[in-house]
């Protein structure tokens, strides 16, 4: 039945076996073993993501997001009127971009807040955790699936107003609109990442919803207001202003898009940008970091969540 256990007892009590994270991958894997691991991880993440996409469609999130972005886009087009020439286009595109500052984060947070806490409350996360898959991969699959649905909502939703703008102002507007669309999608992903991180942190769905709304208020309104106050109260160095912008994904998005559209008005805007070292490249990287860092935090948190879940 069992082997005698006297041997191990004389080992001097060193704890030999995995004492770090439970979900560590086999580390003795050879190169080919690692390739197999990567392929397995891809399959696992892929099937979880596909399930999440399916759920996104069945829960009408895809339709809601596409409809929401399309509707708001059309609203902007209707109210912006149609001033002729490049200037008219820039104004309309800038209005579209500024509207996205409100709508895209709100939609991403609303869609993402229950990404982890939702399945945790329903017990689905427990079922998945019983499978031979790390929690990081579960998180990756769920986030990827939601990311696809969200980006699809942004892309397909802005397609209609975008197409109208192109037909109205000509094909030369495609690059600006494409930049706008990609930036809006990246903004959405950043807030999805924030929502997922919050979702990993809290115990209850209602708390996650509250935290998501607070995050929206903070990033969309309060942060810039405070930053404005700080800029007004102190003579900040260019580096500090840069940091203030980078500390908020909506600011990063706004500066990036206005800079690319050339519609932030303006001599003043452009010169402040160059003085602060806020190049398009840096801003794009910052936006990517706003996707990556919250997700990395979520990946750490979801393991910790697994540990405390038993208490």
């Amino acid at each position, binding site marked *: 039945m069992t082997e005698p256990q006297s041997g191990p007892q004389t080992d001097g009590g060193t704890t030999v*076996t995995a004492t770090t994270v439970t979900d560590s991958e086999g580390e003795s894997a050879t190169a080919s073993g690692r390739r197999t691991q990567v392929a397995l991880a891809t399959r696992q993440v892929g099937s979880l993501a596909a399930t999440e996409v399916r759920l996104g469609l069945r829960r009408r999130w895809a339709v809601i997001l596409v409809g929401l972005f399309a509707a708001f886009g059309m609203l902007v087009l209707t109210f912006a009127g149609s001033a002729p020439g490049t200037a008219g286009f820039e104004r309309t595109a800038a209005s579209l971009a500024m509207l996205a500052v409100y709508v895209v984060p709100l939609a991403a947070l609303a869609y993402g807040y229950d990404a982890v806490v939702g399945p945790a409350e329903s017990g689905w996360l427990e079922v998945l955790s019983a499978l031979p898959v790390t929690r990081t991969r579960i998180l990756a699959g769920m986030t990827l699936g939601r990311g696809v649905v969200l980006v699809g909502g942004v892309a397909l939703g802005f397609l209609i107003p975008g197409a109208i703008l192109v037909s109205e102002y000509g094909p030369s507007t495609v690059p600006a609109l494409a930049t706008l669309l990609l930036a809006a999608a990246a903004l959405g992903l950043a807030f999805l990442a924030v929502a997922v991180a919050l979702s990993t942190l809290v115990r209850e769905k209602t708390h996650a919803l509250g935290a998501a709304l607070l995050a929206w208020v903070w990033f969309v309104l309060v942060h810039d207001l405070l930053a404005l106050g700080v800029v007004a109260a102190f003579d900040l160095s260019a580096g500090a202003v840069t940091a203030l912008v980078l500390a908020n994904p909506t600011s990063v998005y706004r500066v990036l898009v206005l800079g690319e559209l050339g519609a932030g008005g303006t001599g003043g805007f452009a010169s402040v940008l160059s003085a602060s070292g806020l190049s398009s490249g840096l801003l794009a990287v910052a936006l990517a970091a706003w996707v990556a860092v919250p997700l990395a935090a979520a990946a750490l948190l979801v393991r910790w969540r697994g540990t405390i879940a038993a208490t």
Partner: protein
Amino acid sequence: MHIETTDVTRTYGDVTALDGLSLSIPSGSTFGLLGTNGAGKTTLFRLLIGHETPDSGTIRIGDTTVSAAGTEIRERVGYLPERAGFPAELTAREVLAVTGRVRDLSDVDSRVASVLDTVGLAGDADRPVEGFSNGMRRRLGLATALLPDPDVLLLDEPTAGLDPLGVVAFHRVVEDVSERTDATVLVCSHALAEVERLCDRVAILRDGQLLAAGELAELTAGTSGLEETFEAVVTGDERFGDEQSAVAADGPDASEAQRPPDTAPAEREEGAP
């Protein structure tokens, strides 16, 4: 595949969930875990599937030390968590298919069909889980655990909250599975009758410590049944005061129980003699 825990201790802050638990569960047995609330049953399950590591002590399933195996241990273990749940918008078939794909099983579709048949959900396979009764959900959870033809099946409070019909249906499936396969089944339950009906061996835990363990027939000898035994054990009835001897009959070396408390428990490395 037999399961063996050796002097396993797990604490959460000031709370000691498992306190030097040594337990041996023979291959192919259906083993009942009884205990009061907070006795450490769920903690034991979480340790068994590698969600957590023991503070000290070793857990082995077959030849594998769980804590060293990472997620791989779950390839051979089917686990039905107490709080299992499913996205309401997925069908039973889809739920099973995605767990099968994540498990990287071959022939997922035919396995899913067969396991749906086993748990009696074949007729509801393509309905969304939304419309399922509690009993159907538990059986769907059981199906996710059965999908990989596991060597070890862990059932955490499998029939809690089910109506009598649901309980009966669930028990039929478990009995059927333990007859048809040589899987080791570990059932943790508050329902003594359930354990009495399903299990051939039983262990009784309190405050993370093993109070008694052995064959059901042995433990219930001289009492009216498991109910009386359980009550006697947890209230410290002297007839069962020497429960360690019962453990020793099929548990680890008795000397372990007399190990000086200041000796740090050692863990055995994978592959050590």
